[in-house]
């Protein structure tokens, strides 16, 4: 890979330069010695996988995070960005995916929130001036709308325009956009691109985070690729191909190998999903999972992976399609799916998977109450026996079954969730980010446990943003993109590069 020195600056001096930025969170190095320069009037694309450090870099840039190490230079002068106010003073504005607008105020009030023109009576607002000022700002970005329109009446694209108008009204010289086209239609995207061209012509610099290859090449003047919190390379679009970019993004360092005993021959079909469509934005999903298999479900965050899991489990409505589980068609409610033997182990196990204040024992038997006590009467001793045997079987590290689950480590909490479903007789385990927030040692234990489950005739569907993990433990994987299955990768084709290529917006 070429080094940064091979890139020539489009203009002699960068507007803003970050040097050697590091940011650490407990257990994660979000940014590691990242340097990054923005030149006047350029569109600078920021590229990287989920968790590569794009968002962290963006937050450091706008003062929401304070860098642990590193220096900032504005037009060559050393400056500090320790707060959002500092960033604002330097003319840095962020257009967040979650808009910072107030729904029941009008456009003008939103643009000038906190900077309202004063009226004659102290404390009041000069209504005529605020509308006129807003109109002027909206005109400069070519957005033709009445500034007294309430923001909650606007569509996503229009709200984005108001956000941009707000930034421009603060004399922003550097606009940071986080996947701005994610929620836009093709037509709205064209309008946004036209606006970006216009801002560029006015000398505004744009830092643009994107997952769509087409955009990267259509808009970008320069591209910075991040991986594992490090800056991998800076290139010009003309000098690279999409495939080269993908190769820069993947190749995360593997800290250890995960245990997996692949079966010679997969078992019978346990789950078969055909044409599944849900109003949550997924459509035409075909998935098959056999006994003895761990099947990966990958794609970018927001590509619809969790929605597929929720639809199969019955937690989201299904508008069309068929789900056949263990030979029978299922539809409807999560409790039906659970009784048939489908377990959904959600990403947010603290809020959705466990009662944190209750004991390990209580949590282990809670889903199995109907099975363990068909009469409806709770038998303390039999519950104890069940939970004790699960604690032994899953090697849950807890002083006793009476320990509150919230006091266990992340890995052991995850084991309790798995144990809970095991007790309920689950045959298919759907994992959503099973290793999120779990340390490396515990990860391999979790995978060993999943491996044992499927070896004993169960099956697993595993959603993960950790492509290394998918490649190591899965028999095969589906890759999603924008609510659809973009492709299927057999064991032999299962590489990070292939996953990223299918998951990104280019063929």
């Amino acid at each position: 890979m070429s080094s940064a020195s091979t890139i020539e600056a489009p203009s002699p001096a960068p507007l803003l330069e970050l040097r050697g930025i590091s940011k650490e969170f407990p257990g994660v190095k979000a940014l590691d010695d990242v340097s990054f320069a923005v030149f006047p009037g350029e569109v600078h694309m920021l590229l990287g996988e989920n968790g590569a450090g794009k968002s962290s870099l963006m937050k450091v840039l706008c003062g929401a995070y304070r860098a642990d190490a590193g220096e900032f230079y504005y037009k060559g002068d050393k400056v500090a960005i320790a707060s959002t106010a500092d960033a604002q003073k330097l003319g840095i504005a962020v257009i967040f995916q979650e808009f910072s607008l107030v729904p029941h105020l009008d456009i003008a009030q939103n643009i000038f929130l906190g900077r309202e023109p004063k009226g004659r009576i102290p404390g009041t607002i000069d209504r005529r001036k605020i509308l006129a000022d807003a109109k002027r700002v909206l005109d400069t970005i070519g957005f033709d709308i009445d500034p007294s329109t309430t923001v909650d009446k606007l569509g996503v694209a229009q709200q984005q325009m108001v956000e941009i108008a707000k930034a421009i009204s603060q004399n922003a010289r550097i606009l940071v956009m986080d996947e701005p086209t994610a929620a836009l239609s093709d037509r709205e995207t064209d309008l946004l691109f036209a606006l970006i061209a216009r801002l560029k012509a006015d000398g505004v610099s744009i830092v643009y985070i994107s997952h769509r290859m087409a955009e990267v090449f259509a808009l970008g003047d320069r591209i910075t690729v991040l991986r594992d919190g490090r800056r991998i390379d800076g290139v010009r679009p003309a000098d690279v191909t999409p495939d080269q970019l993908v190769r820069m993004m993947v190749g995360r360092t593997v800290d250890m190998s995960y245990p997996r005993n692949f079966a010679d021959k997969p078992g019978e079909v346990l789950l078969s999903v055909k044409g599944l469509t849900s109003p949550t934005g997924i459509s035409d999903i075909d998935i098959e999972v056999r006994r003895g298999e761990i099947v990966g479900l990958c794609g970018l965050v927001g590509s619809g992976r969790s929605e597929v899991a929720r639809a199969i489990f019955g937690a989201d409505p299904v508008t069309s399609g068929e789900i056949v589980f263990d030979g029978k068609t299922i539809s409807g409610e999560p409790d039906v799916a659970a009784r048939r033997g489908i377990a959904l182990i959600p990403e947010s196990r603290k809020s959705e998977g466990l009662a944190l204040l209750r004991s390990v024992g209580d949590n282990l038997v809670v889903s199995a109450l109907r099975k363990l006590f068909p009469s409806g009467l709770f038998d303390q001793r039999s519950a104890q026996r069940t939970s004790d045997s699960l604690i032994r079987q899953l090697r849950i590290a807890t002083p006793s079954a009476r320990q509150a689950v919230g006091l266990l480590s992340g890995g052991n909490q995850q084991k309790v969730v798995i144990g809970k479903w095991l007790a309920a007789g689950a045959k298919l385990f759907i994992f959503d980010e099973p290793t999120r927030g779990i340390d490396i040692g515990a990860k391999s234990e979790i995978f060993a446990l999943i491996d044992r489950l499927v070896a004993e005739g169960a099956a697993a569907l595993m959603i993960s943003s950790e492509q290394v993990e998918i490649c190591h433990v899965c028999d095969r994987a589906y890759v999603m993109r924008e609510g659809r299955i973009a492709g299927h990768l057999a064991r032999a084709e299962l590489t990070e590069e292939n996953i990223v290529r299918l998951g990104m917006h280019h063929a």
Partner: protein
Amino acid sequence: MREAAVVSQPNPLQRIPGVAIVLVLLIALFGAIAPGFLSVANLSNVLVQSTILTMLALPMTLIIMTEGLDLSMGAVLTLTSLCVAIVSLATKSMLLGLAAGVLVGAAFGTVNGWLVAILGIPPFVATLGTLGMAQGLSLIVSDGQSVVGIPHSVRDIYSSTLLGVPVPIVMALVTYAAFHALLYHTRFGTYIFALGGNPEALRYAGLSPNRLLIAVYAIGGTMAGVAGLLMTARMNSGHPTAGLGLEFDAIAAVAVGGTSFERGNGWLLGTVLGVIAVGVLRNGLNLISLPSSVQVASVGVLVIVALFLDGIRSRA
């Protein structure tokens, strides 16, 4: 670029029906079945009696717009009403009595705001706590007895008129005008919309949501103090249970009036209509001699019916 601006303009008239339909129906109902309901004397009585609730429901609207709640309002009103009675009795001055009530109310409101904004206690719990404190203090300062023999200057507030309009109604109108100006024409009012709608936006704008939140609760307590004067004047005494359950009526009026409990959307005129609807309901049920226990239940039914109507209309 031209963006098709096909958005419907905010039209407050669109929202009137939910509460206005209910109000018209109630007036028609009691006009038909309650003898004397439609007399000028009775209707004026309904309005005068609604003034105390108006003074609680208007600040309650602001508090609910911040996704908050103030359960302590009724109990704080009881306490401020007693303060007005005791201080005016001791000093023979209505204004000193009012000052005492307003000070105590403002103090309670500030404490509420501080508990919610700085300590981060959920409003329901924080104001339930101060409700208990205000109730206990009321019993202590009054020794459980009514405070009687207060000066005429206090009682006259409730019964006198200004240019033919009862003074309590003048006070309520002035209060409404002040709240209207505050919410829709000042910077502070703009920030109240943001407190419930998107507090992050305030932070990005360099404003302190916490200070604004404390101010909103402080306004609520202060208004409970002003309403305390009216309550003492109305009863011609201070009574240790005077404001019992008024917070329920105030929250009901705000809900009936179409203020949303989420995302910072409030409507002051709707609140006033909601207050009148509650007043008409209680007055009408009184006239047909239903016990007050039924009245409380019927206010509950009113809330559910009004919100149900709004729900249907917003779906349609």
